[in-house]
């Protein structure tokens, strides 16, 4: 059922074939199949606990699949484990830097561990530290770095050994918007210059929109796989949200007068119409209850996720701090 693949043309760099993993009675990942082409940015989108990290760990040789198989650049993740590790870069959800060492020492350790040539090593350290704007701070202990600086350093480190694929598990979790934007800039740059393939997991919809293709994962299964645009197109028309002091009554009226199916969230009522701009003037004229605000918007991946799975992506389940989504629902 998950063969919605239609990869970008060219070489397949990540090939997951019916990949599954159970932990005791729990089936964390069930028969996941997808392919990622060279130079593609591929996103795994789903709530916490959907099986994203488990999938990444299997692709990165840190976890053996219970069923199915996967290959990276044609190398099997189980039988050619070390060769796979050499051609992947990995940025984990939680920081994995040695805080007692300097930025440069952290990178140097990595270069030694991957057996890099001295000339390549020094050149790469300089190039990447400059890219992530930490060259000036290279001699400082990592313990003095902010969260954003650490993440940037980890990205530099993950790229040091010139991997074919960069895996990022929730790369911008808990980071400020400015740092998040910078990180996406680096990734875009690397993809353009080095043809890097990027695989990332996220439960942030706005982040997923940076991807070429997205696999939506829920309860260990891929429920949809397509470009962000096509996924959004699956939710037809526009979404109208009204805020009202009496949302229940407002919802009743929307149903009775327009035959639409509204959803109530807090004091707002949301419903879907084929064309928002045409619909609004008539709607406002005829609406008989007080309105606090009204907005029309194109569907986001949030809506796609809701449509596909029947439940909202559980952002609040994350322990990170990020401005609450509710602002989206106000008049923009």
């Amino acid at each position: 059922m998950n063969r919605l693949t239609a990869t970008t043309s060219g070489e397949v760099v990540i090939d997951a074939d019916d990949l599954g993993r159970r932990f005791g009675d729990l089936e964390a990942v069930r028969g996941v199949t997808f392919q990622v082409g060279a130079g593609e940015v591929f996103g795994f989108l789903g709530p916490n606990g959907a099986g994203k990290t488990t999938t990444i760990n299997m692709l990165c040789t840190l976890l053996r699949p219970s069923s199915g198989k996967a290959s990276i650049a044609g190398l099997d993740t189980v039988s050619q484990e070390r060769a796979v590790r050499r051609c992947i870069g990995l940025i984990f959800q939680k920081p994995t830097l040695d805080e007692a060492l300097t930025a440069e020492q952290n990178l140097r350790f990595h270069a030694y561990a991957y057996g890099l040539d001295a000339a390549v090593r020094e050149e790469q350290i300089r190039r990447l530290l400059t890219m992530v704007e930490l060259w000036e701070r290279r001699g400082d202990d990592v313990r003095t770095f902010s969260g954003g600086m650490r993440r940037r350093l980890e990205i530099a480190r993950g790229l040091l050994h010139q991997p074919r694929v960069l895996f990022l598990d929730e790369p911008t979790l808990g980071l400020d918007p400015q740092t998040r934007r910078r990180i996406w800039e680096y990734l875009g740059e690397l993809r353009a210059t080095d043809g890097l393939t990027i695989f990332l997991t996220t439960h942030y919809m706005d982040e997923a929109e940076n991807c070429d293709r997205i696999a939506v994962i829920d309860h260990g299964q891929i429920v949809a796989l397509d470009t962000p645009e096509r996924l959004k197109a699956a939710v037809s028309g526009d979404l109208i949200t009204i805020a009202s002091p009496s949302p229940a009554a407002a919802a009743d009226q929307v149903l009775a007068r327009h035959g639409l199916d509204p959803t109530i969230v807090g004091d707002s009522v949301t419903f879907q119409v084929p064309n928002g701009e045409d619909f609004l003037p008539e709607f406002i004229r005829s609406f008989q209850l007080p309105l606090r605000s009204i907005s029309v918007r194109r569907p986001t991946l949030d809506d796609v996720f809701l449509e596909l799975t029947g439940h909202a992506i559980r952002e609040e389940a994350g322990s990170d701090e990020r401005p609450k989504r509710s602002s989206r629902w106000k008049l923009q």
Partner: protein
Amino acid sequence: MIEVYRGAWVVAYRELLRFLRDRSRVAASIVFPLLFLAIFGAGFTNIVGVMTGGIDLMQFMYPGVIAMAVVTGALAAGISVASDREDGFLREILVAPLSRTGIILGKAFGAAAVGLTQTLLLLAVGPLVGVDLSFSVIARLVPIALVLSLGVSGLGILVSSYVRSQQGVQMLIQLLVFPLVFLAGVFFPLDSVPVWMEILSKANPVTYGVDAIRQVMLGSELAGAGLGLTAFGHTMSIGEEVLLVGALGSALLAGAAWRFGRSE
């Protein structure tokens, strides 16, 4: 094979680098054994007087204290594994193209490198306590300390694969240090202790390492003078002691590597 070798040196390099960068740790690792030497020495030397073989307690304790530093440093390899696991750095090591066995050897050799650095620093006070050190003594001391350190670090790492949390490992290792060091003949000769203690001490592998280091530093004639270690009525030679510690240590390290490969 190259991945075993690279894993070992890269992990050991980091251990030593971390140690050398941490000035307070370097200082503490020297001051602590010296405190033992100074306090016990000052307290007991006059009571004990001249011991068999014509040495005083300070001279007797000095090699023991060096062995103690090596043993505590080696056990700390287990704490190092647990702390890497806790602060996430272990994942960086595990996902690199290195062998699991190499990583464990790296932790062991790293602890040994730290222990040897400590040993060399502690040797500087040798003349002060009346122990003459020649180059040939040091050249024989280093490999013995290395074997002792590698073996004991196997025990420390083994602990860390059963007890997962850093605090748990730290507690358990402190619990181990006490009997391993105190029942190893570091502070008093084992020729005049009660039978139960003698049995425990001779079952303690560290005892043989301590005795080998003492024989090297004070001269093997001490063994003949009754301060040497006898097992089953046989006075152990340095070679036998090193062999015993080495064999047991290899088994511990192999066990640690095997457990690590399975559990991480």
